[in-house]
């Protein structure tokens, strides 16, 4: 028995047609990340390179695992997965360990797992299923409200962990999926106005002082040069001193002499900017751009609404991570704890990024099946 390419089940042909460029980009970015994390942590007691390499390897396994599972069967189980994610978020409130003021981690030995990263994926699955089911040109208001409600529950749990940045990352995912699922422009305007009002309420009644401080510092960096402004100032110095071609690998004084805090995690891009200059920054931004556009092409040719919405949701979250982190490092937006996919050191986030990539590739792989 021979397997022909003109078969009704042309799996190999499809495998060849999958946008492996996404995997290649993920691996390339992860490699750049490993090199930069090594440079950023070479002066520390612990070199984070081996740990991050383990996470990348685990991520690669997760990617292929996600690739192997049919997203349609996954969406069937999206409700229990979503509930499981919520339970994990609730559990971490009581059982988690505290890091940097946020109780959002499960400590496993010296590694930590952040359930919020995985809750994002399960929420995306449930949201894709929910919005796919509407099956009309524009969403009705109660459907929008329902989608918001689905997102609000995990967000609220993450806010309780005092991890505002991670919580906020649900919003671009929600916004991207709602937009593609169809929202009338009147609703968008109304939502923008509502957001303004909500912002005022948040500022006055919800946000904590350190969070306000970050915003204030963003607006006026000279306000507190040794406190909240220090991070921003050192980051801009690192980025700016890279100039066009950079200071050379492992030659950045801001990172090598430890002036830049959080340089292997949220501010890893500042280290890259310092050592590789604007050329390095532009190259990596282009790589991210290629990744997003290829991901978008997966959405465009996906077989069904669920696939489209799932890919859009995952990509929107990913794109926002990239945009916010790079903008934050250069001082365009206030500082908050948002890492850069594939580059920043961090187990759960790396794992989740590879998982999401695997899910996107999975959608692409199954685009002809059961049409």
């Amino acid at each position, binding site marked *: 028995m021979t397997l022909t390419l003109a078969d009704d089940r042309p799996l190999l042909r499809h495998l060849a047609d999958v946008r492996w460029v996404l995997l290649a980009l993920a691996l390339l970015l992860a490699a750049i990340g490993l090199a930069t994390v090594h440079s950023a942590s070479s002066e520390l007691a612990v070199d984070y390179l081996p740990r991050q390499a383990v996470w990348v390897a685990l991520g690669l396994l997760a990617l292929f695992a996600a690739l192997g599972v049919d997203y349609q069967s996954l969406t069937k189980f999206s409700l229990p997965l979503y509930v499981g994610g919520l339970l994990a978020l609730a559990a971490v409130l009581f059982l988690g360990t505290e890091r940097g003021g946020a109780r959002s981690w499960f400590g496993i030995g010296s590694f930590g797992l952040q359930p919020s990263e995985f809750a994002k994926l399960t929420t995306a699955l449930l949201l894709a299923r929910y919005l796919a089911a509407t*099956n*009309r*040109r524009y969403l009705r208001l109660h459907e929008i409200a329902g989608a918001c409600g689905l997102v609000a529950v995990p967000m609220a749990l993450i806010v309780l962990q005092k991890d505002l940045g991670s919580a906020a990352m649900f919003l671009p995912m929600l916004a*991207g999926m709602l*937009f*593609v*699922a*169809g929202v009338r422009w009147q609703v968008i305007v109304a939502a923008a106005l509502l957001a303004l009002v909500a912002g005022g309420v948040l500022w006055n009644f919800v946000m904590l002082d350190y969070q306000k401080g970050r915003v204030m510092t963003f607006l006026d960096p000279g306000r507190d040069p*040794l406190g909240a402004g220090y991070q921003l100032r*050192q980051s*801009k*110095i*690192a*980025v*700016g*001193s*890279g*100039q*066009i071609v950079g200071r050379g690998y492992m030659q950045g*004084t*801001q990172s090598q*002499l*430890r*002036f830049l805090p959080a340089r292997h995690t949220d501010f890893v891009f500042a280290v890259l*900017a310092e050592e590789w*200059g*604007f050329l390095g*920054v*532009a190259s990596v*931004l282009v790589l*991210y*751009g290629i990744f*997003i*556009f290829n991901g*978008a092409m997966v*959405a*465009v040719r996906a077989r*069904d*609404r669920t696939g*489209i*919405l799932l890919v*859009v949701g995952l990509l*929107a979250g990913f*794109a926002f991570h990239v*945009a916010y982190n*790079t*903008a934050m490092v*250069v*001082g*365009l937006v206030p500082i908050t704890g948002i890492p850069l996919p594939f580059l920043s050191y961090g187990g759960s986030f790396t794992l989740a990024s590879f998982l999401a990539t695997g899910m996107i590739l999975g959608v692409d792989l199954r685009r002809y099946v059961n049409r």
Partner: protein
Amino acid sequence: MKRVREERENLVSRIPRLQVFFAALMIIIATGYWRVQVVGGDFYRGLAENNRLRRVPIKAPRGLIYDRDDRLLVDNVPSYNLLLDGSRSANVERALAFAAAVLEREPSELRSAVERHSGRSRFEPVLLAENLTLADVSQVSVAQLEYPEFEIDVEHLRLYRHGPLTAHALGYLGEATEEDLARRPGAYQPGDLVGRKGMERVFDLHLRGRDGERELIVDSRGRTREEHGREAAVAGKNLHLTLDLELQQEAARYLGERAGAAVALDPRSGEVLMLVSAPSYNPNLFTRRLDDEQWRELIDSPYHPLQNRTIQNAHPPGSVFKMVLAVAGLSEGTVSPTDSVFCSGSTTIYNRRNRCWLRRGHGWVNLRKAIKESCDVYFYHLGQKLGINRIAHYARLFGLGGPTGFDIPGEKAGLIPDTEWSLARRGSPWYPGETISVAIGQGPILVTPLQLAGMTAALANGGRLVRPHLARGGRSAPSAPIAVDPDAIALVREAMWAVVNEEHGTGSSVRLPYVQIAGKTGTAQVVEQRTWTRNEDLPEEHRDHAWFVSFAPVDDPRLVVVAFVEHGGHGSDAAAPLAKRIYESYFGDPDPR
């Protein structure tokens, strides 16, 4: 399973809009990086360099100062300061308790030093204590492992080995003021120590050398990683003075608690061998920050110890001024050496009776005897004949009433009056009666001890003005002889010899067997006396000032000594013995018993 046709195309059609939105975001962000890295790159590179490089000055050792026999007058000595680096301290309170125990001081004292420091950079160490003993230093060093927050800083302090003895000649150091920074742009940095007075000030640039600099690469904790560059300090040059420490000691010993001044110089070159102003102050006090009490004491003292009496206090010269009149009278042909005047103890000029200091009178006096016995009556008449303007002219020829050009700045000009001065400054004409007072060095005439030393040097060296100076090897070419009759100077010198060496000379107490001294006493009235009151019966502040000007040996003068004792009474009693001691010390007794 029933298949519903899915509403799919609308979804797909919206995706490009998201792509455009994302592309726009990325362009904005890339522009942000362009602005910071390409446009602002140099600026941020500078900030990064500033972050990592610490410039630590290497202080150039200041030049030492020696006297004319190469005896060390000013030394640099190491001083140890205790610094606390708060950023390295796990427990500041515990560290302070330890330091307090070592230094045997109260922890609260040290804590207040830390509190005063708050607001400055936390990476900048706090100065806890200065001037640690070596025992303290070793205790802190031994505990370095346990208390890494302590640093010992070595600083070189100026030590004036002879303290008050050389204070007015040498001066002291102080932190550069705004004025210093403006005066010599680039020469000084804020915080630099610069010479405040005396030779430390005049030769500051010679002595100070050039500070070096170490460029250190530091990390964000301020810890040094490596040395990036080093510019060595250039040591200051030493300064050799013409001062003679032994003469200085003799004069100070004589003056003791009394206020006064003493100057000795070489009449051939103007080299100053002795410059004493009493009372003095201890310049080593200025090395450390003075406390208020010490400063008040110096400022409020009625004896003004900070004032350099050799150049900053001007007084009437008294009879010492008679030499100027003698030279003027002879040069102008107003008198001849043989002209005589009868002194009955007083004389009436311009309807006013003017007394001679000797009540019974000197009888017939010629010029030589008038100088030797200091007859006032003779000079009243000579002054009257010369008139104030000619007296003033000759006084100025001898360098009186103006700065001598001495190294040390701050010289008082003093005052030589004439008719023009009277009209311009007093707004009233000069009264001829005043000339009679000026003729014996009283009235509105003021000179400094150094000016009188210059005058005496000109008499000693045959009529040339020298520029008094303290730095060895300085310019010392004497000026051309002043426009006076050389024979007049010769006669005055001979008369000054007689003052010391002949009977009835007013300076006979100074006579030494092994060196021929010439001199002249002077007594400057502090308050005008209408009656004959014994000076000893007056309150101290009304007693006369005593002068003695002199040179020796008379045939080949090598030393001029001017002594001035405030409220000392008669020149012969109070000032002359000082000069005698100086000559004894300088020429020595070739045949000691």
